[in-house]
């Protein structure tokens, strides 16, 4: 049947090639018969004799070639067996190794004779004996062993892990098996498992800390704001109902109470917004920076009103990031630049990029404002850190902290350069676009 699928075992599918020895024997017999015909002295005796001689000669030749080829094949098999990099073995049904290749001696230190002298179970780790026996019994029933692992003892008493693949072969009741030393791999796996477990513990504790922070900011949001509202509320009511009874100093104190409470409210709101920035999900896509900048600038119309500002926008590449967070960072930087150029008759603000390394885009925002002293550069990005008094320039000092948090969340870096009274430049490194379509 031509269309019949190959039998799964593969056995019996190979057509038996007549061995040269068989042909030689047939030829020899034919030659012998012809020789007898030749001896019979009949009319064709001479022809039969010649043919018989040729046949006998051919048979001898074939016989010899067969012997040579068999020897070569045996030698190839022997070479394969002795040079194979994995552990090869045959085992009999009585539980002894029959043949082991030289790798065994290299791995375990026992000679082939030592290994064959005792039942192989003697070498198996006591904890693995039961499993090994089960597997051995199954193989004698005809099952194949695939990736079965157990430990064998070395001459020095240590154990090595072996991974077995074995096929029972009906003929001769032997089991043909190949094993690989997986001790190092198992140790590496074990290390990976340990590291993974360690990492999971870290993640769990980070999550716990994060949860505590969230509870903290929630509490800040609710519990700190309430008494603040009461201070402002009752100060207002006091002013409304007792203004007549208060002198100028009293009214000034009351105004100070309200202003201080209001400022604290602003600080709380800023702190909450900052904490939310750290928690917000990062939805990174390829996004053209000039689009981000244009949309940020559009939002600043109110701050630009009544100011003479030259906003120079250099061509900007695309980056890979969260558009709304990046927009927030640019708004913070532009708003800063506008604030600190307020004392200038004409504000000059430039946005551009510099070549960055390692697939990064470095964007800068440069202004001609009041600048800062580089010795305070490390304080620029701290929460509520300010380099100017609130009287000079209003604000809580959260803007650049927000910028830094956004850039850090993109795996980037932010830094500032400036000189007192000579302007400031802020740089952000951001991941370059990956070449996907922007969402």
């Amino acid at each position, binding site marked *: 049947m031509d269309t019949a699928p190959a039998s799964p075992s593969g056995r019996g599918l190979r057509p038996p090639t007549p061995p040269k020895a068989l042909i030689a024997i047939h030829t020899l017999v034919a030659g012998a018969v012809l020789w007898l015909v030749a001896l019979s002295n009949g009319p064709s005796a001479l022809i039969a004799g010649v043919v018989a001689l040729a046949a006998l000669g051919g048979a001898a030749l074939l016989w010899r070639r067969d012997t040579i080829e068999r020897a070569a094949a045996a030698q190839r098999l022997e070479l394969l067996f002795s040079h194979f990099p994995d552990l090869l073995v045959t085992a009999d049904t009585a539980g002894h190794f029959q043949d082991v290749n030289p790798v065994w001696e290299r791995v375990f230190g026992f000679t082939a004779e030592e290994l064959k002298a005792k039942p192989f179970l003697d070498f198996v780790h006591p904890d693995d004996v039961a499993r090994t026996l089960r597997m051995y019994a199954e193989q004698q029933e005809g099952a194949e062993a695939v990736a079965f692992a157990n430990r064998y003892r070395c001459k020095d008493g240590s154990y090595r892990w072996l991974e077995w693949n074995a096929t029972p072969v009906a003929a001769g009741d032997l089991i043909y098996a190949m094993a690989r030393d997986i001790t190092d791999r198992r140790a590496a796996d074990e290390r990976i498992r340990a590291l993974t477990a360690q990492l999971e513990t870290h993640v769990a504790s980070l999550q716990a800390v994060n949860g505590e922070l969230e509870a903290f900011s*929630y509490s800040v949001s*609710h*519990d700190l*704001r*309430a008494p*603040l509202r009461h201070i402002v*509320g009752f*100060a*207002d*009511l006091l002013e409304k109902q007792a203004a007549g009874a208060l002198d100028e100093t009293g009214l000034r104190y009351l105004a100070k109470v309200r202003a201080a409470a209001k400022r604290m409210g602003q600080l709380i709101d800023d702190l909450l917004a900052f904490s939310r920035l750290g928690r917000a999900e990062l939805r990174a896509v390829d996004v053209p920076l000039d689009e981000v900048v244009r949309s940020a600038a559009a939002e600043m119309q109110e701050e630009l009103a009544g100011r003479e500002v030259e906003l120079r926008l250099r061509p900007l590449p695309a980056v890979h990031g969260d558009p709304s967070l990046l927009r927030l960072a640019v708004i913070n930087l532009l708003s800063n630049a506008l604030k600190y150029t307020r004392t200038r008759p004409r504000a000059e603000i430039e946005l551009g990029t510099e070549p960055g390394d390692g697939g990064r885009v470095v964007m800068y925002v440069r202004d001609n404002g009041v600048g800062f002293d580089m010795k305070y550069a490390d304080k620029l990005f701290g929460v509520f850190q300010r380099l100017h008094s609130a009287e000079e320039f209003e604000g809580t000092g959260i803007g650049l902290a927000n910028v830094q948090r956004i850039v850090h969340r993109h795996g980037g870096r932010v830094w500032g350069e400036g000189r007192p009274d000579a302007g400031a430049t802020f740089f952000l490194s951001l991941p370059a676009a990956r070449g996907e379509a922007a969402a």
Partner: protein
Amino acid sequence: MIGLRPVLIVDDSADDVELMREALGTFKLANPIDVARDGEEALRYLRREPPFAARPTLDPSVVLLDLKMPKLDGLEALREIRADPALRAIPIVMVTSSREEQDLVRSYALGVNAYVVKPVDFAAFADAVQQLGAFWAVLNEPPPTGGGRG
């Protein structure tokens, strides 16, 4: 007797309650103002359980519910009210200091009618409370008392 429906303030902070009363008083709201100090008291009030067994028959025109309170908090009280067939139609407005997204999401999921963040500034706070009073106690047509039943 047909009277005005009360406004129920549920808030554990006596200061907040006083400021809200003040704001509603300035606005000259005629409706009576009742107060419960936590979610559990609010439920007793609404279900006429002691010490509120003798409260007027009319259900409140609106419940101004704080979020964070001892015992039963605002969200838990809201859940109970919405699960009670006799109470589920009563308008409820969250009036809270929290603008946390999770609070907004949970409140709306539980069927709150509105969510107002208490402003720190008293003028703004008073204005918010007055607007709430004007809308819910005067302008809004409440469900008929017991309208939620069946």
